[in-house]
C-alpha cells in the first residue's frame, strides 16, 4: 500500500447527507474482478445530471471530497472506496462516516477525516467561493488546513502509523502466527466446521 503522510489538493463540495454506498457505486457496477476501473460507476446515477458537482469544470481535478453527514452507509462493498480512489480522490472529509466504509477506506489508503458539521459547512462555503482553494490533509500533524483555517482531527495511533508506513495489515498479522496457533489449540472442540460436508 502507498504511504499516506500528507496530501494537498482542491476540494469537491458534495452537499448531501446519508450518501450510501449504493449512491457511491450502484450494484450493477460491482461485477469486475479487479480492483481498478470502478471510476465509471462513481456516483453513476447522479452523473447524468449536468448540475451534479463532479460534472462542473471547476471541480474536475478535485482530490478531496467534502461530504455531508453519514457518508458511506449501507453495503460493505469496498468497491465504493476503489471507485473514489480510481477517480482520483485521496481523502474524504465528513462529520460522520459509516463504520464499514471507514474501515475499508483506512485499509485501502483513502484517508477519511472526521470534522464537526459546522466545519464541513465552512469548507463547502470556502470551496464554492473559490474552487481553487488548496486543502491540505496532514496525517503527520493530524490537521486539515485551507486558507487560514486549521482543523485538528483524531485518528487512532495504530491506524495512523500503518497508513504513514504504508504497511500491509496481513503481513503484520502473519507475524503473530504463534498466537493464532496457540489460540486454535484451545478452541472448543464442538465448534462447527464446513468440511467435511455433512
Amino acid at each position, binding site marked *: 500500500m502507498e504511504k499516506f503522510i500528507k496530501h494537498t489538493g482542491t476540494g469537491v463540495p458534495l452537499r448531501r447527507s446519508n450518501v450510501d454506498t*449504493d449512491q457511491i457505486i450502484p450494484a450493477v457496477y*460491482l461485477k469486475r*474482478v*479487479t480492483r481498478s476501473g470502478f471510476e465509471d460507476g462513481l456516483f453513476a446515477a447522479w452523473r447524468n445530471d449536468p448540475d451534479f458537482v463532479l460534472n462542473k469544470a471547476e471541480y474536475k481535478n478535485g482530490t478531496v471530497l467534502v461530504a455531508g453527514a453519514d457518508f458511506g452507509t449501507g453495503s460493505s462493498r469496498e468497491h465504493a472506496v476503489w471507485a473514489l480512489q480510481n477517480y482520483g480522490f485521496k481523502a474524504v472529509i465528513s462529520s460522520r462516516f459509516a463504520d464499514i466504509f471507514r474501515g475499508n477506506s483506512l485499509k485501502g489508503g483513502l484517508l477519511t477525516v472526521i470534522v464537526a458539521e459546522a466545519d464541513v459547512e465552512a469548507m463547502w462555503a470556502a470551496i464554492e467561493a473559490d474552487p481553487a482553494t488548496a486543502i491540505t490533509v496532514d496525517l503527520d500533524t493530524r490537521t486539515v488546513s485551507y486558507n487560514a483555517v486549521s482543523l485538528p482531527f483524531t485518528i487512532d495511533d495504530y491506524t495512523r502509523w500503518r497508513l504513514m508506513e504504508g504497511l500491509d495489515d496481513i503481513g503484520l498479522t502473519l507475524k503473530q502466527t504463534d498466537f493464532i496457533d496457540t*489460540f486454535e489449540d484451545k478452541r472448543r472442540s*464442538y465448534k*462447527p466446521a464446513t468440511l467435511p460436508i455433512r
Partner: protein
Amino acid sequence: MGKTLAEKIWAEHVVRQADGEPDLLYIDLHLIHEVTSPQAFDGLRLAGRTVRRPDLTIATEDHNVPTLDILKPIADPVSKLQVDTLRANCKEFGIRLHSLGDIEQGIVHVVGPQLGITQPGMTIVCGDSHTATHGAFGAIAFGIGTSEVEHVLATQTLPSTRPKTMAINVEGTLKPGVTSKDIILAIIAKIGTGGGQGYIIEYRGSAIRALSMESRMTVCNMSIEAGARAGLIAPDETTIAYIKGKPHAPENWDEAVAYWKSLYTDSDAKFDIEIDLNADELEPFVTWGTNPGQGLPLNAKVPHPADYADPATRASAERALEYMGLTAGTPLKEIAIDTVFLGSCTNGRIEDLRSAAEIVKGKKIASTLRMLVVPGSARVRLEAEAEGLDKVFIDAGAEWRNAGCSMCLGMNPDQLASGERSASTSNRNFEGRQGKGGRTHLVSPVVAAATALRGKLSSPADL
C-alpha cells in the same frame, strides 16, 4: 461487574491484545460470495499466501445470479465471469462452494443457519453488511470489506476495535399483523441510520423472546440499517430447538448446549446505552423515503419536510419526496404499487413465504402490479414447493423464482424500471437500489402480500 453477551463472546475470541492496537479477533466462520471475494483471492495469489482454514470457510453464489433459467449459462457475460471466478478460486483454494443448481445454494445468510453452521457464541464474518443476521443465534456477526476478506482468508483473524454495547429492550406483545420487520423498522426510525454507529446492539425483552428464530434473524439482519455493525439476541430454547437436527449441529450436543446456556448478559452488566420500545403500541411499518430511517406506521401520511426542525433532516426529506414522487400529506395507504418483491436475506425464509401465502391463498393479486416471490435458498424453495406454496403464489398471479438476492439489490436482471414503485420485503430503500430510478417502500411479508392484493400499500387488516 458482570459482562454483556457481546463482551463475553468478544473476550473468548481475542487471540492477542496489546496496548494501542486493535484486538486480534479469531473468526469461527467465514462466508463468501462472488461479488466481494475475487480481489481478495487475487491478493492471496500475488503474495503467495494460502487460505489458513478452508474448513471454517464456505461459499455460495447469490448476489448476481439469475432467478430464471438457472441451469443455462449466465447470460450476462460480466456476471458469468464473476461467478466463474468464484468457482475457480474455491477449487484452487479448497473451499466448499454451493453453486447454482445445488440444494444448498442461496443467499449466504440463509444458507449458514439452514446448515446449522451458524451457532451461538461464534464470531462470523462475510463480505456483506447483512452478516448481522447470524447474530440472532447469539453470535457476533458482522460485515467486512474485501481487504478484510483477504485478511480472514490468510489468517482466520481480524484486527478489530471492540464496539460499545447498546441494549434495545422491546417489551410487550405484538398485535396480530405486526411482525419482527415492523419492530426493526420502528427501531431504525427511532434511532436513525447512524444511531447504532460504533455499537453492537443486543435485542432484549419479552417481545424479542417471543419471536421465532427466523423472525429474530429479520431483526438482527437490519442492525446495519441503524448504523450498527452487529446485532445479537441471547440464545434460548428457541435457538437450541432450531439448531437441533440440522446437518452441522454439534455431535457433542450436550457439551455445546451447556456452553450456549452460559451465553447471556449478566444481571449486573452495564450497557453503554439502553433504548426502550413498547411492542404493544407497534403498528405495521413502511418506509416513505430513501433511507431505512425514513419510516412511519402504515396508517400515517407522507410527512411534510417543514415539520422537521433539523435543516439536514429537512433537506434529506425534501430530496426523498422528490425522488420518490410523493406529495406530503398523502395517506401512505393511498400509494399505488407496481411491483411487490417477497424475498431477500431479511425476509426470504420459509416462515416469510408461509405468512404471505396465507394471505394471498385463493385470491388474485391486483391487475395493476406484478409480484415476484424469490425464496432465500434452493432448500427454502423446495420446502415451500413441498407445502404447495408455489401453487398458492402462482395461482394468485405471482411469479415463482429460483433463489438469490435478486431484486433486493438489482444486480441480476430482476430490477425496477425508472419510476417504478415497489413494496419490498428487503432491507434498503436507497435511491436506485432496486434499479436505476426505482422507488422502494420497505415492508413486512404480510404487508407485501396485502399490498399485492389491494394494489396500494396495505396491512392484512385492510383486506
